[in-house]
């Protein structure tokens, strides 16, 4: 039981996939222009991550070593396509917002990385917890970045069309640089530096 909790905590803090392992940077920076996108992407990644970890763990004793990477890729690609089609059908505006980054979840290093490094070598319950932890860790990172970019870039926070709050002064004169690509680089750079400075992450 303790082991399972440990797997969970690992993904969120100690080995946070985005902030520590520096995996999955592409979608994190690209779609973090709004909180809606962050939530949508996290949900999609969580689904694929958990499902693929379960499947890879289930077949880990039958998968021949030589073809394991192509096998993982096919499994992940199939799950991603299922998510893609489902989103297009039932959440079309989110699908349009996230664009090519939904199919690009296939090459999100987090998912293939966990399948290869963990799920293929561990039992199903552990694999599930690892996936959930990593997924939540990813979600936290992308949400923080989206939050900062949306607040500074547009001056207000709106979740799924409902405005939560307006930052006075900022909403009349937002700083568009944060919504632009370079803003993403800026935010994550400052975020990482701050986390290191405050000792949450060790540098080096």
């Amino acid at each position, binding site marked *: 039981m303790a082991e399972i909790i440990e797997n969970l905590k690992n993904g969120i803090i100690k080995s946070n996939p985005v902030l520590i392992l520096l995996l999955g940077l592409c979608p994190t920076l690209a779609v973090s222009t709004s909180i809606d996108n962050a939530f949508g992407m996290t949900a999609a990644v969580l689904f694929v991550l958990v499902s693929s970890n379960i499947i890879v763990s289930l077949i880990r004793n039958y998968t021949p070593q030589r073809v394991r990477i192509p096998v993982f890729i096919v499994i992940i690609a*199939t799950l991603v396509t299922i998510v893609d089609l489902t989103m297009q059908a039932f959440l079309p505006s989110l699908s349009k917002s996230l664009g090519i980054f939904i199919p690009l979840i296939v090459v999100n290093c987090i998912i293939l990385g966990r399948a290869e490094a963990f799920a293929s070598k561990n039992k199903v319950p552990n694999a599930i917890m690892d996936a959930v932890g990593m997924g939540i860790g990813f979600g936290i990172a992308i949400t923080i970045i989206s939050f900062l970019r949306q607040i500074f870039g547009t001056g207000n926070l709106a979740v799924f069309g409902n405005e939560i709050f307006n930052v006075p002064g900022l909403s009349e004169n937002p700083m568009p640089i944060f919504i632009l690509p370079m803003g993403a680089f800026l935010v994550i750079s400052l975020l990482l530096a701050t986390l290191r400075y405050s000792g949450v992450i060790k540098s080096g």
Partner: protein
Amino acid sequence: MTKSNLKKEIVPVLFLTFIVCISVIFLYATNSVTEEYIEDAKNDAVNAMLNEQFTEMDDYSYDENLDFYTVFLNDEIVGYAFIAVANGYGGPIELIVALESNFLQDDEVIIHGISVVSHSETPGLGEKIVEAAFSDQFNGINVDDVALTKDGGKIDAISGATISSSAVVDAVFNVVKEKAEIIRENFDLNTEEET
């Protein structure tokens, strides 16, 4: 090759093929379930786009060969619309260009209006093409006047976003010129056949 060697080579490939087959089955199933909904979602999107230009409409039809939409209200034609793609500053700008319903009869081609469907322009600058201040300039304009004021036309560019503005202007002008001709030709033929 010895029998066990053969087995070593073949088994992995068979396994992979098996996995691929399972995946194809799942994808086929998912596609069958979601196909309808995706179609509906697309139709809703088109409807919403057309509605922006023609606030009173209840139906539309799409001509696949000539790639244009005819918009109806109570079985009467209210107008026509095309989708145009402009080469914007940050990427393609998808536009809906709507024409008045009488352009077949008249010599002039009057634009009903334009709407920006999607774009990747710079927030605060090129993004202003979606604002009424810019796009309303196209309401009721003659296609021959569709050019930036600096080029002798009647459209004021967005200050600081000349590229975005001229991209939209060029795309609107080109698509209308091209399509209006084609549709007129086709409808002339049709009316001749009907009589």
